[in-house]
């Protein structure tokens, strides 16, 4: 199989990640639940992972890195914990449903006002519109760091400036970029960064979380076992326990720790992202100009602001048909459809047919990319 669905998950993981998970599953107890050697080992792994993720994201306080099952859980927790009844949130049409749906729920249940900044013809965020929408009284600006449909990147430091100028907080969804595009929360002045472990970070599924700047109050979303203060009626408010009710996925976090170490030892997110971008650019240049192929996103105008995705359609064909042909005929794995990003597709005019998303990862090779280009050419020539 030629795996070009790395925006969904990086299927191939570093050997160190696999080994770390296997070792953890045979040795770790429950982090923070007792003082047995197994429990302490689990606690040590979780702490090291917290410190490694904090360093990777530029979060000054490791205890403000709170783990969850994935980005969706982190985003739900962050949005629910930051936005109160009747408050205003500005977001964008680039967002995934993991931002759009929690905001829709807040609108329905708390009367939260949600405004959506649009994009240009290439899918880049309309920063001027965002700035117009962020007015005094806005509580939060929630924005992705990279579109999961086009791969277009967002200047989140600029978004944070706009948010803070109006007295709002800035939440960044780094699901598509953590591990592959440098992020520095402190330098970029970001308030909350939500991430998943299984995409660019190349860790196990079931890992993710949020990093929260000092002074930002994210209210607990769930209450329960904490391992401390058991006789208190409510869940503790201390970091990171306030956002980590219940047993942590220490086995997964052992893998995530190994993954982050691999990335750091390999030159950091900039090095990994550069390689993935290089492959995607090769893919884009191979399919651009092929008769009958439409490429979406920013590649033609600003490739330096693109990630590792090439989004395309073939004239006369549904995206699902193209994806099925690539899989059945050439053994190429990609993703068709709407990618849980309805507003992005509406903006691009691809609501009905969807888009064929080919996404490169660290383990892809040039010959795999070239095979995908040949397959797309053949399908388009039909």
């Amino acid at each position: 199989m030629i795996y070009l669905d790395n925006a969904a998950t990086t299927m191939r993981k570093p050997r160190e990640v696999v080994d770390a998970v296997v070792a953890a599953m045979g040795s770790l107890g429950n982090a923070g639940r007792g003082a047995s050697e197994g429990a302490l080992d689990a606690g040590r792994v979780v702490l090291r992972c917290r410190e490694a993720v904090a360093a990777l994201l530029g979060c000054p306080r490791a205890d403000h890195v709170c783990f969850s099952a994935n980005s969706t859980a982190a985003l739900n927790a962050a949005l629910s914990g930051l936005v109160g009844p009747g408050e205003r949130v500005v977001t964008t049409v680039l967002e995934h449903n993991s931002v759009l749906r929690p905001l829709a729920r807040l609108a329905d249940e708390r009367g939260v006002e949600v405004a959506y900044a649009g994009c240009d013809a290439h899918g880049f965020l309309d920063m001027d519109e965002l700035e117009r929408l962020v007015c005094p009284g806005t509580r939060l600006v929630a924005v992705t760091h990279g579109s999961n449909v086009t791969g277009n990147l967002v200047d989140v430091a600029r978004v944070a400036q706009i948010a803070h100028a109006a007295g709002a907080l800035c939440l960044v969804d780094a699901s598509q970029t953590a591990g592959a595009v440098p992020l520095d929360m402190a330098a970029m002045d970001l308030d909350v960064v939500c991430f998943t472990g299984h995409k660019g970070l190349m860790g196990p599924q079931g890992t993710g979380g949020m990093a929260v700047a000092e002074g930002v109050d994210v209210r607990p979303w769930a209450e329960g076992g904490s391992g401390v203060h058991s006789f208190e009626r409510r869940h503790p408010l201390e970091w990171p326990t306030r956002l980590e009710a219940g047993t942590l996925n220490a086995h997964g976090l052992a893998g995530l720790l190994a993954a982050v170490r691999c990335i750091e030892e390999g030159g950091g997110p900039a090095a990994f992202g550069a390689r993935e971008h290089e492959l995607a650019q090769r893919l884009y240049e191979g399919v651009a100009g092929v008769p009958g192929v439409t490429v979406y996103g920013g590649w033609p105008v600003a490739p330096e602001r693109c990630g590792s995705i090439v989004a395309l359609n073939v004239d006369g064909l549904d995206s699902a048909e193209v994806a099925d042909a690539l899989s059945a005929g050439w053994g190429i794995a990609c993703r068709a459809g709407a990618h849980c990003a309805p507003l992005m597709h509406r903006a691009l005019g691809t609501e009905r047919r969807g888009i064929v998303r080919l996404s490169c990862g660290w383990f892809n090779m040039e010959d795999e990319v070239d095979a995908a280009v040949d397959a797309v050419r053949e399908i388009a020539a039909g």
Partner: protein
Amino acid sequence: MARVRVPSLVVTFPTTAAAMSCEECCERRGLGGRMIPVPGEVAAGCGLAWKTAPEAREELAAALAADGVPVDAMTVIELLEFR
């Protein structure tokens, strides 16, 4: 390879769990077909569908009903094949 369109039975499901149950049901009973992305002509969005020959409709419907696999719709459309 030449691009041709072939009439196919496309089964859609309310959940991914139901789609996977369909695959298991068909494998266990030796029924033909395979999983594909849901064609936009059937439903916009994402998800999995089961593709098989149109003449398999009755047998497949009976098998899914017997196994309690929920189905959204069964539709015959022309789908792309390379020959």
